[in-house]
Every structure is written in C-alpha cells, then in structure tokens.
C-alpha cells in the first residue's frame, strides 16, 4: 500500500469486562489488510496490554493506529494520573494495580514489559496529573 491507513478507536474506561474491544477491532482490520499472523499477534498483544492499562489506571482514552507499507504505529493516549517513575514501571513484576484487578488475573507487572517485548520501538511520554502517551512501532 502506498499511503498510510489510519484507524482511531475509543478505549472505554468504565467496563473491565469489555476491555480488549479496540484491540480486537485492530486485529480484524489488520487481518483484512492481509498482514501476516505473527505481525498481527505482536500488534494485538502490545495494544491489548496498553488498553488494559488505560482501563485499570486512566479510565480509558484513545488508541490511534497508523499502518504504513513497512510498519504499524500504535499511539495510546490517556488523561490518567501519569507514571511517576517510568523506569520502575518498566520492571517486570512491578505493579500498582488494585486487588480487584489482580483477582481477574491482571496486575502481574508484565504489561509494559510485554509491550516492549512485542514491539520494535516503544516510547512513554508521561506527565503526572496530566496523562500518558505511549508510542509503539512494529516493523513488518
């Protein structure tokens, strides 16, 4: 494809049970574009982890996806509390998720590390009290 495609999805922050809807829609769109299954899997997982974080910590936000001829760029924006110590947040096992979230199987402190693991580029831009923007890129 010569020109980039853009998708934008709201992430509903109220309903934990429906978390993953934006990621599922992205997965479907990438499939329709004929991308290979491993690339779709990497984008799906990275985005779902980001989406879950937005639901747990930030009451939702917006996911913006750009598909170019060689990479997929995922931008997740929220107006949540921000991340005070990004280095600490990136450590496997570190989590500030509440107990009710943990009882659902989340909050293991693997979200951000997984996002880094499955993408070729990841940047966290966060201001405490204002929000967080995460940019991820997956080459294919």
């Amino acid at each position, binding site marked *: 494809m010569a020109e980039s495609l853009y998708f934008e999805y709201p992430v509903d922050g109220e309903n934990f049970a429906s978390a*993953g809807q934006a990621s599922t829609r992205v*997965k479907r769109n990438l499939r329709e574009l004929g991308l290979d299954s491993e690339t779709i899997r990497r984008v799906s997982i990275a985005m*779902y982890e980001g989406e879950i974080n937005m639901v747990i910590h930030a009451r939702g936000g917006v996911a913006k996806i750009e598909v170019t001829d060689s990479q997929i760029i995922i931008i997740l924006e929220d107006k949540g509390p921000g991340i005070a110590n990004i280095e600490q947040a990136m450590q496997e096992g570190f989590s500030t998720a509440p107990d009710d979230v943990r009882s659902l199987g989340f909050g293991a402190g693997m979200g951000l590390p997984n996002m880094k693991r499955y993408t070729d580029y990841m940047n966290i831009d966060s201001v405490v009290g204002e929000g967080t923007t995460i940019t991820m890129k997956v080459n294919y």
Partner: protein
Amino acid sequence: MTVKDILATGNFTAISLPDEGREINGVYIGDLLSWVMGRAQADNAWITIMSNINIVAVASLADVACIILAEGVTVDETIKTTAEAKDVNIISTSMPAYEAAMELAKMTV
C-alpha cells in the same frame, strides 16, 4: 493434533468450538493473563483455571489454539457466547493442569 483430537480422548468437554480443526502446537499453563500474553506461543493449547471474560480476549489476541479449563472450572453463558463470536475454542476437563498437559503430551508422542 487438533482440538477435535483432544475431545476424542473423552477426557475433555467442549464449551465453545467454533474452530475444532485448529492445529495445536505446544502447551502453555498459566493464570496470570499478562504472563500468558508474554510467554504463550501462537497455536499453544492454554491450560488455566482462570474463568473470567478476559480469557477470551487474551486467547484471541495471543492467537492460542484453544483454552483448556482445568480442575472442572466452568464459565457462564456470556463467556461461551463471546468465545463463539470471537472464534475462540474453549474445552474443559476435571483433570488438574499437570495431568491435562500430560494427556496432551501423550498424544503428541
């Protein structure tokens, strides 16, 4: 080995079976969802005792071949319907995770 093959052993029960011919390659056991997302491989059979609605999204996005609910864990009707709509196979067994994995290992030898 397909999901249908596992069911044929008689030790597993189908809960949602939209893609019974899905080929299984390897097994992953785990209940922490992000851990599963980070470590499970595509086409794995994922054995868990976690039974909330989020397992369907995890299975779909991580592209595992099926969810195997161990220890006789059950799911409500909403999860069954969501799984069918999202093309996620779910089967259950009364066996603990280790024994279920052993059963699958026997089939691949």
